[in-house]
């Protein structure tokens, strides 16, 4: 209800202030002999801004410090022996008071001081809420009046408003940076926390992945060797690339160089459908159809292939990445200038010779960039391997056996557990940091290569 009240108040202020600005501007224009610099709606918007910004600022401040204030106040209500007593007891008492104040009631009999504190807390909450709302509204109205008084023919309201818009746009583009900073900061923070339990040497160079459950007592956390997971990731990604690169690249070459226009118009979107399918569906496909089929095939040729294995996951992932490789390569191949092709054909080369000896070498940097992006996509893919790779974090080199990857372990270690105190769940962040670093390197190299190549022909 409280947030609804606040939202309604803000909307009301917005509408009222804009309207006041608008009519004031018209009145000034009517009474003045000077021509107004800005149109009335800019005046209205400036008044609305002057009104809303202070109000919002107050509400934001309260949003961030409000909880601390309430907590301090609650502590002052409790008897000193509880406050200075042991931490769990204090937390308990705080929770009970909180529950009494919100009217839920508590288990067992409430102490008299608890009842009193709950009552006062309830009143305090109400008081501070309305006080905040009143201050916000008051400041908003002052802002409104000040801005209203500023409205004059010479006031450059449009320029002021446009400056504000520009700042807002800049803030929005800052959010992307903030996200990256947030990712790096949170990963680093929790990973460092993890490394206070397990030494980085054991993590990065350990060959055994065997985390114990948190319930295992005695300070034994299990072993957290990254190498089996890293190897699993590389193995699955390699298989995926072996599927995706030949098929994707050849499809791109055919569609860009050979296909009649009609075939291209049909085949290109048809292949791109594969890119739009969520990865969980590939996981289902791998688990239900592909895995058993591969196992049956293995039985036929006498090679033991498990239904959930690196091979199954790799092939499913490869299928998923085909359109990624093909559409990126297609873009790059079509960018190669036609003059180069004509030159080669004119010298008597066949079409395939032209493609292999002239077009592909010219497009090579871009294609390599596309491959690197595809590898980075394969490293980060999660659901296919969760479902189809068999979850066996063991360092072995047979792709027909079950394996596990970095992403699978992140999901296994963190799912359903948000108690970030034990290495069992914190290791997910160390794994995430590794994954982030790997994909970042690949992306940076790939983007650099692609960009450099583009400049060459433009």
């Amino acid at each position, binding site marked *: 209800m409280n947030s609804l009240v606040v939202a309604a108040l803000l909307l009301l202020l917005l509408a009222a202030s804009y309207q006041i600005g608008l009519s004031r501007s018209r009145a000034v224009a009517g009474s003045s002999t000077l021509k107004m610099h800005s149109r009335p709606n800019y005046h209205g918007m400036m008044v609305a801004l002057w009104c809303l910004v202070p109000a919002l600022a107050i509400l934001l401040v309260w949003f961030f410090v409000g909880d601390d204030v309430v907590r301090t106040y609650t502590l002052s209500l409790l008897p000193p022996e509880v406050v200075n007593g042991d931490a769990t007891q204090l937390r308990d008492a705080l929770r009970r008071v909180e529950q009494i104040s919100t009217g839920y009631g508590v288990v067992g009999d409430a102490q008299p001081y608890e009842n009193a504190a709950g009552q006062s807390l309830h009143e305090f909450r109400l008081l501070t809420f309305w006080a905040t709302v009143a201050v916000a509204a008051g400041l908003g109205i002052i802002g409104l009046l000040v801005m209203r008084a500023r409205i004059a023919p010479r006031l450059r309201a449009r320029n002021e408003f446009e400056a504000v818009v520009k700042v807002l746009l800049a803030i929005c583009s800052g959010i992307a940076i903030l996200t990256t900073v947030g990712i790096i900061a949170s990963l680093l923070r929790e990973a460092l926390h993890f490394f206070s339990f397990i030494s980085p040497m054991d993590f990065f160079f350990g060959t055994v992945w065997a985390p114990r459950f948190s319930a295992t007592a005695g300070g034994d956390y299990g072993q957290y060797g990254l190498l089996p997971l890293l190897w699993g990731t590389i193995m699955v990604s390699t298989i995926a690339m072996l599927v995706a690169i030949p098929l994707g690249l050849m499809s791109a070459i055919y569609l860009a160089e050979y296909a009649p226009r009609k075939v291209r118009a049909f085949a290109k979107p048809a292949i791109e459908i594969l890119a739009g399918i969520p*990865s969980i569906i590939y996981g289902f496909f791998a688990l239900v159809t592909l895995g058993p089929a591969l196992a049956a095939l293995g039985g036929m040729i006498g090679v033991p292939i498990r239904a959930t294995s690196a091979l199954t996951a790799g092939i499913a992932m490869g299928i998923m990445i085909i359109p990624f490789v093909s559409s990126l390569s297609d873009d790059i191949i079509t960018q190669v200038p036609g003059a180069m092709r004509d030159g080669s054909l004119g010298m008597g080369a066949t079409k395939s010779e032209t493609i292999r000896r002239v077009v592909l070498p010219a497009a090579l940097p871009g294609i390599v960039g596309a491959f690197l992006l595809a590898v980075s996509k394969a490293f*980060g893919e999660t659901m296919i391997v*969760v479902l189809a790779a068999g979850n066996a974090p063991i360092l072995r080199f047979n792709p027909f056996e079950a394996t596990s990857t970095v*992403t699978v372990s992140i999901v296994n270690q963190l799912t359903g557990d948000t108690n970030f105190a034990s290495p069992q769940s914190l290791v997910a962040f160390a794994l995430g940091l590794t994954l982030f670093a790997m994909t970042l390197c690949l992306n940076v190299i790939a983007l650099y290569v692609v960009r450099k190549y583009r400049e060459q022909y433009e």
Partner: protein
Amino acid sequence: MTVSAVSSPKSSAAASSPNRSRIQASLKRRRGAETRFRFYGIASVTIAIGFVLFLFGTILHDGVPAFWQPVVKVDVTFDPAVIKVEPKPVQQPDQSPAAFQRANLDWQRKVSLLNWNRIVENSVRAEAPDIQMTPRDIQAMISQNERYRLRNMFIENPDLLGKTVPVELLASANVDVWLKGDIDRSIASDRQQLPEAARTLADRFYEDGRIRMAFASVLFTNTDSRNAPAEAGLLGAFIGSLYMMIIVIVLAVPVGVASAIYLEEFAPKNRLTDLIEVNINNLAAVPSIVFGLLGAAVFINYFHLPLSAPLAGGLVLSLMTLPTVIIATRAALRAVPPSLRQAALGLGASRTQTVFHHVLPVTYPGILTATIIGVAQAIGETAPLLLIGMNAFVTSLPVSPLDQSTALPVQIFLWEGNENRNYFEPKTAAAIIILLTVMLALNAIAIVLRSRFERRA
């Protein structure tokens, strides 16, 4: 274009015979290579399209049967010998509404305590008096919650007491599996999920039409269910996904478009904007699971947003979609011809007016397409949602984005992991069909809206 121009044998007298045969041999080889190369291309395209068809084919083949599920038509007798309860209270003239309400609730509680299983049992038994059946056999046939449906029927209409009405009861998941042949009928009786008597009865009912395949509307009207798998549905997951979709549209699209406008139209070319540009390109390629880790650390652990709530999920997906929207909007802005800007500026519009009044409207189709592609990608995403607890088992409908909920792809993941594989595999495929339909519908909307915008422009 073709190699014939080069290879056309000019019968020059100077060309000696061995030279000529060598050229001819090499030409043959080169033409062979050309044909092979071309064939590889055609083969790759065919294989890739074959994968698309195969994938859709398997999923349709697995999933379509799950849209029908068996219902058993029986005559249910509301037997007074079992339903031993006083008549439903009627409001007395001197009774206050509150007292009447209390009497009514009291009566309903008594009705609930009756043995409704017995009613189900008797009505099934009456259909096939010749087969020896234990109560357990019958309970294995009829979905667990159907007795509550009978109870509610009675509470709605107490006049049913002593009457016999035809009712279609939902058969259990095991009957479904048995009748559809999703379980091997030849395996030993003691290893079958359905007891012997129930199997015989199911077959007989199916033959004489008392069991028919009805449209599985539970998929669309129910939430997940553990004790009655036949009644498990997708509504909760669907609403969870819907909330997240709304959050993504409300957050990622305006912020993404705004930052694209800033970077493309206003930002000075300097180190900082270069950094932002590189950063956005990188962000687009960060694995989705890393966004999940960000969500777990920041939204759940630091800001204490509720676990398993669409709010946290929507925020994570918004951050994930942001780069897609920014990159596509920038491309759309870049494609606007500079003459448009020059004309507006030349007539005295300010930069802001130029952008918002003239440049931006031209890019609406592009932004719209990008938005829908981004949203479609976001609602298909599973991995980050697992990390913020959206794989919880939730049977209640989420009323607000702060309630516990799951999402469509997560529900697919959960059903995929269900131990009752025979039953849940087709059901998972059905859920996948629904998810793909939603995504297809989004894309169709994008195409329609885009063509409409383009016509106007």
